[in-house]
């Protein structure tokens, strides 16, 4: 009966109930769209960071991160071939890529600049698809002395594809080395600070310059990001003398973005929540005042205070359920519409290219939106319900 009363009372003042529902729906839709946008952003950033740059797992020689290397690649991987064979047997693994990072000076004969190089396996790097080639070509498959320059560095060296430059660094034993290289192409990843120093070179070339057969690390790419932990343990079970880092430890920027967005949306969420709570509470309070005489009557004929409170809270619950369902439906619909459309967003911090607005609809977000509507409406009704139950019968009955 309480529900019957509650629903009928909700329908009693159609317009006011409609406005209250609108506020709740607004809140629910906001949660769904913002939450979905945030989820999509995190997903996209995570996958592009992993598949374009750091891989799901990075395998190092044991001691790499804890011990202080006095010389380059002191803790480098010796026998990459058998290591990767062992790892690639796992069906979850999509591919492995060996890398070395090194620094040195690059000179065009007139001036030198410091460079930071990533030495890669050209075919694997190509599969990672993480750069935009602005001149020339990608790293050729079997030229150990061809390099790619970051756009800023190329400009500073006045270099174009086909030019020759000299790389200088120290070998793994500490003596100096220099190597002439041919500029195969110029690239950009969209981050200026990186493009000003970056060199991409084949691993064979780096090994020549460093005078070594070692590599610094082996990147492991999986088909599904969810397999990361399992694959991590599996590899440690099969191979010894190595240490592994998971992508999460290697993606501070990703975590910063997550924290930033969560902070912003969390704050927004609180503001929206407060607005909804106050609006709904206000509406129910108005309804309470309008029904003062009715409340007095109910108490006179034997309705207990708690019963009365329950009555109003149930009204809040009823509005919450209706609002939640409406909000859910509308939110899902809007999300689908947006996804089909072509709204372009400006580039996120650190990037130079914008992207298409997409909302990720996850069951978790939808359920949360419904629950929040429901809970908010219920909470909003508590104060009005308390006020109603505390009324003095005689005064209430005498109310117009």
């Amino acid at each position, binding site marked *: 009966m309480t529900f019957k009363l509650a629903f009928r009372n909700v329908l009693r003042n159609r317009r006011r109930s409609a406005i209250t529902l609108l506020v709740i729906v607004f809140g629910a839709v906001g949660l769904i769209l913002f939450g979905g946008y945030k989820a999509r952003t995190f997903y996209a950033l995570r996958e592009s960071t992993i598949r374009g740059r750091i891989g799901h797992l990075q395998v190092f020689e044991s001691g790499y991160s804890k011990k202080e290397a006095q010389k380059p690649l002191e803790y480098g991987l010796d026998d990459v071939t058998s290591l990767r064979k062992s790892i690639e047997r796992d069906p979850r693994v999509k591919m492995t890529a060996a890398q070395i990072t090194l620094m040195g000076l690059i000179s065009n004969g007139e001036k030198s600049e410091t460079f930071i190089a990533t030495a890669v396996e050209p075919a694997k790097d190509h599969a990672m698809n993480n750069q935009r080639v602005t001149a020339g070509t990608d790293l050729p498959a079997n030229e150990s002395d061809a390099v790619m320059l970051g756009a800023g560095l190329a400009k500073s060296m006045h270099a174009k594809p086909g030019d020759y430059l000299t790389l200088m*660094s120290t070998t793994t034993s500490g*003596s100096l*080395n*220099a190597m002439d290289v041919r500029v195969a192409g110029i690239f950009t990843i969209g981050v200026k600070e990186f493009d000003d120093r970056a060199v991409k070179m084949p691993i064979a070339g780096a090994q020549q310059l460093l005078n070594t057969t070692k590599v610094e690390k082996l990147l492991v790419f999986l088909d599904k990001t969810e397999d990361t932990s399992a694959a991590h343990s599996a590899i440690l079970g099969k191979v010894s003398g190595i240490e592994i880092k998971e992508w999460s430890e290697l993606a501070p920027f990703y975590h910063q973005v997550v924290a930033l967005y969560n902070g912003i949306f969390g704050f927004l969420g609180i503001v929206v929540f407060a607005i909804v709570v106050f609006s709904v509470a206000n509406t129910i309070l108005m309804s309470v005042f309008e029904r003062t005489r009715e409340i007095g009557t109910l108490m006179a004929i034997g309705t207990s205070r708690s019963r009365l409170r329950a009555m109003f809270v149930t009204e809040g619950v009823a509005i919450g359920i209706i609002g939640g369902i409406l909000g859910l439906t509308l939110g899902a619909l809007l999300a689908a519409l947006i996804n089909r459309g072509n709204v372009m967003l400006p580039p996120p911090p650190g990037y130079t290219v914008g992207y298409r607005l997409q909302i990720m609809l996850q069951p978790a977000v939808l359920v949360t939106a419904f629950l929040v509507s429901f809970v908010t409406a219920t909470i909003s009704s508590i104060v009005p319900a308390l006020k109603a139950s505390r009324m003095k019968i005689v005064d209430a009955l005498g109310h117009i």
Partner: protein
Amino acid sequence: MKRLLFALFIATPLFAQDAASILTRVDAARNPLTSFSVEVQLTTNAGESSKFRVYGKGSDRSVVEFLAPASEKGKFLLMLRDAMWIYLPSASRPIRISPLQRLMGQASNGDVARTNFMTDYNATSVATDNGEWLLDLAAKDPSIAYARVKLWVDKTANEPVRADFYVVSGKLIKRAHYHDHGRRVEIEDLLRTGNTTVMQYSSLAARENPDKMFTKDALGKW
């Protein structure tokens, strides 16, 4: 034929002896004193000029005190066999310079100037070139900065005239010309054509440099 064979026979051990003794005499000429101080005036072709005092002990320890220009005054450099440290008056403790950082700036010339041929290199051949000995030197240890050096030596004075410095890949990156009995050294940077540095040595004197002076903790404190 027999004469040739005989010549070859005695030439080989002679060559080894000769190379080593040449090197010894070269190093002796370049570093006559075991414990010393010397002033160095350094000028680049760009017109920049700086002045140092170098305190040395043995062949592999030296401390460089920056005297001029005013912006550099008060800095110290400690050069040991495997490591280099810099002390800046604005920092509380000396900073280690990695081999990579030694590529840059004048530290690389410092490496060239103090190359110890005797201790660090083996002569793989001796020849005569234009009236001078030409020694082909290979680094004894893979950690030595320049993997190979070609050294021209004046036969009479046993002084170095010119040295070409090669890296592991075989690329020639520096050339030193020695003048005035080693009191003036010109170093050419062959990767940046036109860049030369001239180091002028003066006031070479014997000095009792205590061992503890060549530790990083002592740097800047005296």
